[in-house]
């Protein structure tokens, strides 16, 4: 172990005199975000590996995927909840990760604000859209004829 004392990176010490972006904040948001990255990561492994296994490895793999495949899966609340959890956790985890990266590389206040605004809007749109898609999904849409799941009434 070295005996050098390393100041915490953002302490405006002699070792890091340049960090003048923000005053220390007293909220615990960053701590919460740090913990969330780890907890969501553990859960996402199960959700995403399961998703990839079912969609790419089983049966015909990627060839099996079409409208009827999705309809079959989302007719079960199990896969609805699975996909919903995967959507929210992956989007929040990914958005928070990219937020960190923006904070690291974008040095000007204006650039950082702009990039993060775009990020949050994009993330919000995708989360709302993905959620609506799962909950408003109609496996047997009126007028459709091809690729329907087998349980739809024959037109």
């Amino acid at each position, binding site marked *: 172990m070295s005996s050098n004392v390393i100041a915490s990176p953002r302490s405006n010490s002699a070792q890091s005199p340049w960090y003048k972006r923000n005053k220390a904040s007293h909220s615990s948001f960053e701590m919460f975000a740090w913990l969330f990255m*780890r907890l969501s*990561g*553990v859960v*996402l*492994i199960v959700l*995403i*590996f399961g998703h*990839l296994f079912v969609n*790419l*490895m089983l049966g*015909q*793999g*990627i*060839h099996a*995927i*079409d*409208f*009827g495949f*999705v*309809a079959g899966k989302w007719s079960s609340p199990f896969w609805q909840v699975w996909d919903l959890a995967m*959507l929210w956790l*992956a*989007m929040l985890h*990914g*958005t928070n*990760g*990219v937020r960190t*990266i923006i904070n690291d590389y974008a040095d000007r206040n204006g650039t950082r604000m702009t990039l993060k605004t775009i990020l949050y809007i*994009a993330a919000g749109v*995708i989360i709302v*859209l*993905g959620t*609506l*898609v799962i909950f*408003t*999904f*109609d496996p047997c*849409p009126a007028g*459709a004829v*091809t*690729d*329907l799941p087998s349980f739809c009434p024959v037109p």
Partner: protein
Amino acid sequence: MWSWVGHRITGVVIFVFLLVHVLDTSLVRVSPEAYTAVIGAYKNPIMGLGEAALVAAIVFHAFNGLRIIAIDFWKKGPKYQRQMLWTVLIAWVVVMVPFLIRHLSIVFGGH
């Protein structure tokens, strides 16, 4: 150090994929034809290689993520971080080899 670069790059790649992926999945609300047409693009061999690369990125990010968690929470984590990096790489190979054999034979094998 490079494991951190790799973690960052794979994280961004997966995130960008996910944005597009939710958009393409949302086509199920447009019409079955629209969805099946766009998902059909995922089935050609070039996209098949892209999917393999995506899965490679996810498996690395996931296993290295577990390593980061172990370094942070496990008392001996920092001490064994190097051995754990090797474990990550070995586990990555162990998962990727069977995955690639199966996925690529589906992609290139036709029906």
